[in-house]
């Protein structure tokens, strides 16, 4: 079988989603962001919402999310994406409005905006990438960094007595009446990606149906920040992240 035969449409078993453009992604090889971007692009197209979607990009590794998915985007200040999304959705109630935020953006500097948007039950979807570290700035401690985990600002490991405990912010958000979906997923296996696609679709449908705030936490790897190979990072995530951030629904109304 030659390359042309392999590439022919009838033999195609996988294609890049139409909304994902050809920009070279700046993410490190092995990083979870690329997979989540792909899933989001697929779901928007599947729901036929490409002309009705406004994405809000964060500050952090995903700051350039707007370069990869061909929809309208707003780039927020660090932590403020839910505030932008609040106004956008209220002013354009028939649009799909989602934020894409990392753990520093959502659970540290943007805690107030996140909690209050969710408490008001803003009809937005929040895609929350939790990899337990600040990737963009070079591997500093995040609010979600695990106990004893080494980062560049916790070189001896996170000492919970002085640095606080890793924050399970999804558990806090699930308590709020404004939240209709609070779920944890991952993208380290094909089955996990499939589940993630299903939950992001649900979150987007909730936004369009006006059911309240949906939060999809993607427990992710940062192999570069964790200083591991992609494969080691996946194993480490399963062994260490999953017990503290268990996969599954906390709330799904």
């Amino acid at each position, binding site marked *: 079988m030659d390359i042309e035969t392999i590439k022919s449409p009838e033999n195609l078993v996988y294609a890049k989603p139409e909304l994902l453009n050809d920009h070279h992604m700046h993410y490190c090889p092995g990083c979870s962001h690329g997979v989540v971007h792909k899933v989001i692009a697929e779901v928007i197209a599947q729901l036929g919402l490409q002309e009705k979607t406004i994405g809000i990009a964060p500050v952090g590794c995903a700051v350039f999310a707007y370069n990869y998915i061909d929809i309208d985007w707003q*780039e927020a200040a660090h932590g403020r994406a839910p505030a932008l999304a609040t*106004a956008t959705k209220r*002013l354009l109630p028939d649009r799909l409005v989602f934020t894409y935020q990392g753990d520093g953006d959502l659970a540290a500097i943007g805690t107030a905006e996140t909690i209050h948007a969710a408490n008001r039950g803003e009809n937005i979807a929040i895609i929350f990438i939790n990899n337990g570290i600040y990737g963009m700035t070079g591997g500093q401690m995040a609010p979600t960094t695990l106990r004893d985990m080494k980062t560049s600002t916790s070189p001896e490991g996170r000492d919970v007595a002085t640095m606080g405990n890793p924050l399970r912010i999804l558990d806090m958000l699930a308590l709020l009446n404004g939240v209709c979906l609070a779920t944890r997923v991952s993208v380290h296996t094909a089955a996990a990606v499939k589940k993630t696609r299903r939950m992001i679709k649900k979150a987007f449908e909730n936004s369009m149906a006006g059911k309240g705030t949906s939060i999809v936490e993607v427990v992710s790897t940062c192999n570069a920040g964790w200083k591991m190979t992609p494969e080691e990072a996946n194993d480490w995530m399963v062994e260490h992240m999953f017990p503290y951030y268990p996969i599954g629904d906390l709330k799904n109304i």
Partner: protein
Amino acid sequence: MKGNEAIAHAAIRFGVDGYFGYPITPQSEVIETLMEQAPWKTTGMVVLQAESEVAAINMVYGGGACGKYVMTSSSSPGVSLMQEGISYMAGAELPSLIVNVQRGGPGLGTIQPSQADYFQTVKGGGHGDYRLITLAPDSVQEMADFVALAFELSFRYRNPAMILSDGVIGQMMEKVRLPQQRRRRTDQEIREQCPWATLGRTPDRAPNVITSLELDSEVMEKNNERIQAKYRVIEEKEVRYEEVQCADADYLLVAFGSAARICMKTIELAREEGIKVGLLRPITLWPFPMKELRRYADQVKGMLSVELNAGQMVEDVRLAVNGAVPVQHYGRMGGIIPTPDGVLDALKKKLIS
């Protein structure tokens, strides 16, 4: 009605799409009036009490990114919290209206009137090289009128605009003529007026991305140059000011907002004593009436900048006249309002005797 109430009514009538704010004295009547009027039932205007001024200004960013007429209002400590968002909006070239009904600082300061945020407003406040179109009303009527003017300028130049008021103008009651009710623009009209707005990507265009980020220094310098060129146009075309009894003046008072109101009485008192005093009232604090002040330097013997602060605008007056005539400052701080007599005494002591 009160100045603060006039802002709220004028916003509804102008067809503003969204107001996002957090209560703070002495301007809470703005959001209170909006909540009482409930414009979401009539014009469809969104009114939302945010969890903080930080959230409020970022809601304004989101709304501005959609090409909507969006605004917030606050007072000095709250406006300090908004500086990040204002810088981001200037960087992303987003229109919006921010109202600052100033109170005395620094810090928590006092709830009494002040003009001590002049520097913060016209010299930056937030980070980076940017400018804020700044209108300074001196009456309840201008509080109402400047809502439309601020949005007009803000959208014409894709830059945030501020109404820099103070506790006197916000709280005092005067008669006001409100504008006719306008209908809010449709999304289609916004698409035509603001082709850059994030309303959802239609197949006929590339994605719209609202951002102030550019990591390539060469491109970032070009972005800055483009923004600076826009500022030069605004400085050339949008200066607004009022002259009161300037034609024969030997001395010029320079004052904005409530200080200008006080100076009107000072002019009367001075002229009764045979001292020919005039007033130049900058209406736009940025762009500042540089050329106009320079012209008066050839006519008058001295200028007195009267402000409710320790001396801020006086620096711009001095820059304008560049040493051609003596320029002095008179002000009160901490919420104390100067009296017309006090201004006249200061004029005599600092410039005449």
